[in-house]
């Protein structure tokens, strides 16, 4: 059986699907395939944002730690999702913890390498940041909707 290449994994992920093959090949140089065990952290609040994860399988919980309360889960990210947005802008530090709830298979990007590629190749950078903006917009909209009590007493169902 032929092993699936990083490039193939990347082009099947919603963040990058449809990108020209040459661009996929370029960013693939910054990526590696990872498996994270349940309970293990992908990233921790305050740490340098040196990785970005494209989740392929499994669930990652996004958590915030509160002294005396412990970890509070604020979101979960499943297959097709992205973890580690803080790689995008200075000061490149993570704002939350991210932990594997179950076995997680993901493609991990070296953030510095990805930023360098996006800055050197302007066309690629434009495409990449456009994709990222689309996903972030969607997340912002979902967060706003979540502020409503969507299933709550005002709605009958």
């Amino acid at each position, binding site marked *: 059986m032929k092993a699936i290449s990083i490039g193939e994994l990347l082009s099947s992920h*919603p963040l990058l699907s449809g990108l020209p093959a040459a661009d996929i090949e370029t960013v693939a140089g910054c990526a590696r395939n990872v498996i994270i065990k349940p309970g293990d952290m992908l990233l921790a609040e305050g740490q340098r944002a040196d990785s970005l994860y494209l989740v392929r399988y499994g*669930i990652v*919980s*996004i958590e915030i730690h509160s002294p005396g309360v*412990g970890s509070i*889960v*604020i*979101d*979960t990210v*499943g*297959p*097709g*999702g992205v973890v580690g947005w803080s790689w995008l802008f200075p000061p490149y530090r993570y704002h939350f913890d991210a932990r594997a*709830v179950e076995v997680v298979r993901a493609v991990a990007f070296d953030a510095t390498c990805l930023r360098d590629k996006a800055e050197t190749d302007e066309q690629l950078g434009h495409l990449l940041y456009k994709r990222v903006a689309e996903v972030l917009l969607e*997340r912002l909209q*979902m967060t706003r*909707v*979540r502020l*409503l*009590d*969507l*299933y*709550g*007493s005002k*709605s*009958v*169902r």
Partner: protein
Amino acid sequence: MAPLPYRVTETQEEAPGVVTISISPLGTAIPAHRHGQFNMLTAFGLGESAISLSGSGPEGKLVHTVRDVGPVTSALCGARPGDVVGVRGPFGTGWGVEDGSFLEEGDVVVVAGGIGLAPLRGAISALVARRSAALEARTRSGNVCLVIGAREPQQLIFGDDLARWAAGGARVTVTVDIPDARWRGGVGLVTSHLGAAGFEVEGATALICGPEIMMRFTARGLVDAGVAPERIRVALERNMQCGLAWCGHCQLGPLLVCRDGPVVPYTDVVADLLVQRER
């Protein structure tokens, strides 16, 4: 059309303020229903409410799951075994799962929010059973993929059914907005978990039931993912009175929800109606 008397045989609290009541006919039973249809239930002395069927059983047994939001639903939620309620129905359109082509052409993704799972319960059980039968007969079948959302874990209903459906081969994703310390499932809106539902977009059919805002975002999310709008069905909800397309109470644009709905395909008209402000 006078309501037929039914006796309450069993009640079960599903979540705070949400009760499933089983009723059996005292005499004549209403005709058989299709999954997704609703009845008008009378709490005598108070009034009538439209309530979807969440199940049925032998000897005319009917099951409804009710959320206490006002006088009639409060009386229904407070009913005890032995009490008598009135039933008219069944009314409206259903999910259409009785149609044999379901699952033949692809996966079925079911998205439910809050008590919106109640009108889908019978349809999901039928789909899971059909898939198992198809696999046993070695015929092709799509997957049944469920994405179930609730505000908090304690507001999730039908926990036993979720486990049964998962054991029966359904892919079940459950997500809450506000988890507690013991919660191990998804967190966030159902719309954020559509990607994790594991369905193949090509040939997929979607059934959505929940508050209208949730249905709006979910239907848009599915269309953006590539699901054909005509293969998406949503359940509309409007105040009902006659249930018989006479009084016009349930009018929503060109539709009378009691007759043309509650289950309708997600056409452009319906997409517009879901954003229309109430007058």
